[in-house]
């Protein structure tokens, strides 16, 4: 039935049973021996502080260079947990399937999702499946929620940046947004840029174990680094000044941004975070990040200063200073 499309009849009754038993549950490695499907999962043995988050994924197209909607849906929620210093424990997976999506495609997206969860050690414990009429969805929407355990109480918050602190980015920026634009094939350019889509739980813990005094950790998704750094500056009432020359950008991303008139700082990432650490810990933080494959190109990109009129500034390649705005409008819709 791989080349067959999901139909409306798969949204309830026997059709739904078929869809769940032949596609959804096997792809997620949920077996009969795990017991019957109940109305809610019971999570036992969780004590102390828990992190809880949710995210919906509407990326278009469903596949792109470096990932697909399944990988994105797992990584997005894992990363949100990791940014609060939590180790992912359990995820829910809700699917809204548009009539016409091929079973084979659904399987492959769910496989990607499961693999990321397995690697992160998070169990998929509950979920939901709906089918909507053709034309009423866009292939597939996925919502995931996640619970994580916070074993060490790191004191992380967007409001904790202090003047003198250093700003670090975990790798080259803007790859996910450009990979999506290239995958849409509407823009008259092809590109070899690979999305940075990745689970950051291990990289985040590597940093936090080495530098427990880390003040802020945020993944730079929609709106890119410009959005998160503006948020941090406002929440902490500081001004962050970036150094243009220090910001890692792959040549393919730089070229695409030039062509499209985009600022890489405003382009989405799905596997990059920014961290704010005390100045004295910056070297230790970079050392720890660079030892991990996902952090090998991490870089110190800016400094936190006393609040001026604007929250985020950049020192340009000719030594001028300018504002870096929070992106506005529909720069790149449907990116995640």
């Amino acid at each position, binding site marked *: 039935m791989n080349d067959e499309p999901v139909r409306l009849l798969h949204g309830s009754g026997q059709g739904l049973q078929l869809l769940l038993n032949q596609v959804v549950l096997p792809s997620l490695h949920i077996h009969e021996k795990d017991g019957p499907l109940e109305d809610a999962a019971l999570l036992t043995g969780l004590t102390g502080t828990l992190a809880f988050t949710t995210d919906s994924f509407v990326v278009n197209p469903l596949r792109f260079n470096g990932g697909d909607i399944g990988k994105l849906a797992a990584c997005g929620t894992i990363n949100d947990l990791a940014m609060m210093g939590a180790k992912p424990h359990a995820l829910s997976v809700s699917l809204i399937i548009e009539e016409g999506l091929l079973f084979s495609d659904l399987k492959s997206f769910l496989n990607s999702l499961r693999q990321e969860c397995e690697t992160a050690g998070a169990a998929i414990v509950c979920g939901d499946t709906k089918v909507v009429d053709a034309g009423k969805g866009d292939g597939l929407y996925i919502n995931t929620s996640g619970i994580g355990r916070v074993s060490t109480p790191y004191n992380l918050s967007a409001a904790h940046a202090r003047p003198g602190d250093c700003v670090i980015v975990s790798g080259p920026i803007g790859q996910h947004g450009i990979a999506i634009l290239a995958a849409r094939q*509407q823009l*008259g350019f092809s590109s070899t840029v690979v999305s940075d889509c990745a689970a950051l739980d291990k990289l985040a813990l590597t940093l936090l174990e080495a530098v427990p005094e880390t003040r802020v950790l945020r993944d730079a998704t929609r709106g890119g680094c410009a959005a998160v750094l503006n948020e941090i500056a406002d929440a902490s009432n500081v001004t962050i000044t970036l150094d243009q020359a220090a910001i890692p950008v792959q*040549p393919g991303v730089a070229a695409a941004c030039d062509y499209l008139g985009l600022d890489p700082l405003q382009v989405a990432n799905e596997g990059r975070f920014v961290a704010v650490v005390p100045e004295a810990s910056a070297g230790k933080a970079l050392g720890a990040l660079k030892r991990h494959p996902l952090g090998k190109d991490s870089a110190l990109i800016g400094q936190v200063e006393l609040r001026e*009129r604007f929250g985020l500034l950049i020192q*340009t390649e*000719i*030594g*001028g200073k300018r504002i870096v*705005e929070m992106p506005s409008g529909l720069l790149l819709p449907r990116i995640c």
Partner: protein
Amino acid sequence: MDRRPQFKDPALAKALLTKIGMLAKDLPEVRIMEVCGTHTMEIGRLGLRQRLPDNIRLLSGPGCPVCVTPGEVIDSAVSYAQMPNHVLATFGDMIRVPGSGQSLEQVKANGAAIAIVASPLQLIKMAEERPETTIVFAAVGFETTIPAVARTIEIAAEKKLPNLKMLVAHRLLPPALSALCGDADTHISGFLLPGHVSAIIGEEVYRTIDELNVPGAITGFEALDILGGILSVLEMLINQTALIINMYPRVVRPEGNPHARALIHKFFTPIDAAWRGIGIIPQSGLALRDEFKAFDAPVLTQGSSTLPKGCSCGKVLKGLITPSGCSLFGSACTPQTPIGPCMVSSEGSCAAYYRYERINR
């Protein structure tokens, strides 16, 4: 090949800035105007104004095609978008520009059919796939954009596509330069001439503009290009010459692109045209030639080109004031609540100031 680093080299940029500083000491106030929105944005992005001596002022001229588009064209685009069985296709730049009533973005939210395209050539496929729908393209832009529109019409004519129409609001640069130089109030010392437009029209055409008697440097878009353009204008001012110098020969050939110009000429003929905030400039617009009128989507409304109260777009576009000199700038008029197109077009001078330069108060 990635050529970026050599045109962004910080050490070379510093050397050029030092040289500009030395030359500026021997000059009175110098007012250099750029007439290309890409220059406007790059100057803002670089934070260049803070790095120049106080007596070297950069002014943003009418270089943003959306910004000079009269209100009635925007209103017509909005009307076409709301007609049954019509799709209004446009570059993304136009979408948030306020007309006399609603913007395209506002009517899109209410169900009007609007397609954002990156190239007019995409219209061919749209028209072929939807024969029952009339595709109207908001054909806005200077000489850089016009050849692609002309080529689109050429293909549509070959394929006999009856459902592709052009709302023609193209504008030509040389007549605008002529008008700016002829305006006694502008006091322009020299021009950074637009690299992309010049790639089409070439160098020689500038030398035929009688009113253009100040230095002009055809300039590219990287940091070193722009610094080189400024330096070239300053050198000419010191030497008391007023030449047109091509500082962008890696893209602009002396003769420009004759093939592209022939394509423009095949389909369009020059007409007197209104520029938003500036007024009618003789022979500065284009109309489809009679034999291609079948592709014309005419302007539907007339007389909506008066500016909203307090909007100083005209003065900004002529370099008489900087955007922050407009009483609405940053208060009533922001990218979220635009009053004039200069605030929302991605190449508008008010947008550039708002986005990058409010730091320079």
